[in-house]
């Protein structure tokens, strides 16, 4: 409940403050968001698996975001930024899907 509340508060804050993303961060924010979503789904699944751990969740959340952004940054430096970000999104998408499937199996037995 608090987590949902936090999400809502974050969205409202984003709507209220109308943040402007720094130009240097703009290429990495979407990737970071996808990585955070992945971490969120992973945490939910771990919760349903009964192995949720907040420390692990925190670390995985932050490291996911940082690593994803880092990969894209590295790709930009190497000149394959767009391809690499596509790859990262694909991988994270696959993970989100598999986690969502596990959650679904937990909740609906199907």
């Amino acid at each position, binding site marked *: *409940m*608090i*987590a*949902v*509340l*936090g*999400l*809502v*508060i*974050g*969205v409202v*804050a*984003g*709507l209220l403050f*109308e*943040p402007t*993303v720094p*130009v240097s961060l*703009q*290429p990495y*924010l979407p990737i*970071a*968001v996808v990585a*955070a979503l*992945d*971490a*969120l*789904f*992973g*945490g939910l*699944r*771990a*919760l*349903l*698996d*009964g*192995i*949720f*751990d*907040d*420390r*692990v*969740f*925190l670390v*995985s*959340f932050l490291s*996911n975001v940082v690593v994803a952004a880092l990969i894209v940054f590295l790709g*930009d430096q190497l*000149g394959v*930024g*767009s391809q690499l970000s596509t790859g990262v999104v694909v991988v994270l998408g696959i*993970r989100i899907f*598999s*986690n969502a*499937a*596990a959650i679904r*199996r*937990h*909740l609906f*037995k199907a």
Partner: protein
Amino acid sequence: MSMAVNPFEPTPPDVARDDGAPPDDGAPPDDGAPPDDAAPPGDGALPEERATTEEPVAPGAEIDVEPTHAVSQDVPVQRPEQPGAWHTLVRALRPRATRAQVLTAVLCGLLGFAVVAQVRLTHDTSLSTLRQSDLVGILDQATRQADELQREAATLEQTRQELDSGSNSRQAALDAATRSAATQGILTGRLPAEGPGIIVTLTEPDGSIRALTLLNFLEELRNSGAEAVQLNDQRLTASSYFVAPAEGDGVVVDGTTLHAPYRWIVIGDADVMATALDIPGGALASVRNDGGRGSVLRKPLVSVTATRSVPAPVNATPVLPKG
């Protein structure tokens, strides 16, 4: 449900598991999976209803509540699958000010904030968020497109000019054809004409003028530059002929019998024609020899109104000029 219980559960890849799973070094899940001591295994046939009934209990008790049962019960109890998942979810949703809950809330808030910011960014600006290589690609594409359009414009311009000059030349050809048609219309007698010329009247007071005399008269007129000739109501052209009729007087011109007085209307240089007709032994002299009289009247403007239709050539076909 834990993964070890059901061997038929498709095992997810390891990479997908590292998010919430505790490390193997034995850090106790201090709150993530609280033991289910409230629900006996047989209970929980209607987990969803429980979820709906339990949620309203939530309000108010969020931050200040002490984490009462965030104690270490080391081993997560394995519960039957049916009630377990929903139960865990409901339990996790229940507001408790545990470290995990607050942490998760903060992270979720961050995520929501970032999502909103990103969505806003995506909606607001399309080009400024792109990275340099994409911008270069777009610029490239735009340049290529512009080049292509420019080429197309040049081609169209050229076509337009061609069409323009084509219509110009067509207009010129049309003008020339019109002029030529006018000239030939006059020459062939299709068109009426007017201009300076002479009117010659031949009478027959003492005899009759022969057809040959009239033919010579016409030839004399042509020699002196007559451009359009009318005899009485007959237009005379290159194919005109004079024949003496089988009986009676007069003369047959182009199938029509004409009688004196003969009235010639001739367009041309009046002075030249009058002089030519009047030379000794000339046309007028011949007329006088036949017993006729002739008078020549010079006019600044005479009208040749008679026309004749020209039959289309049957055997001759025009040959287009080469080139």
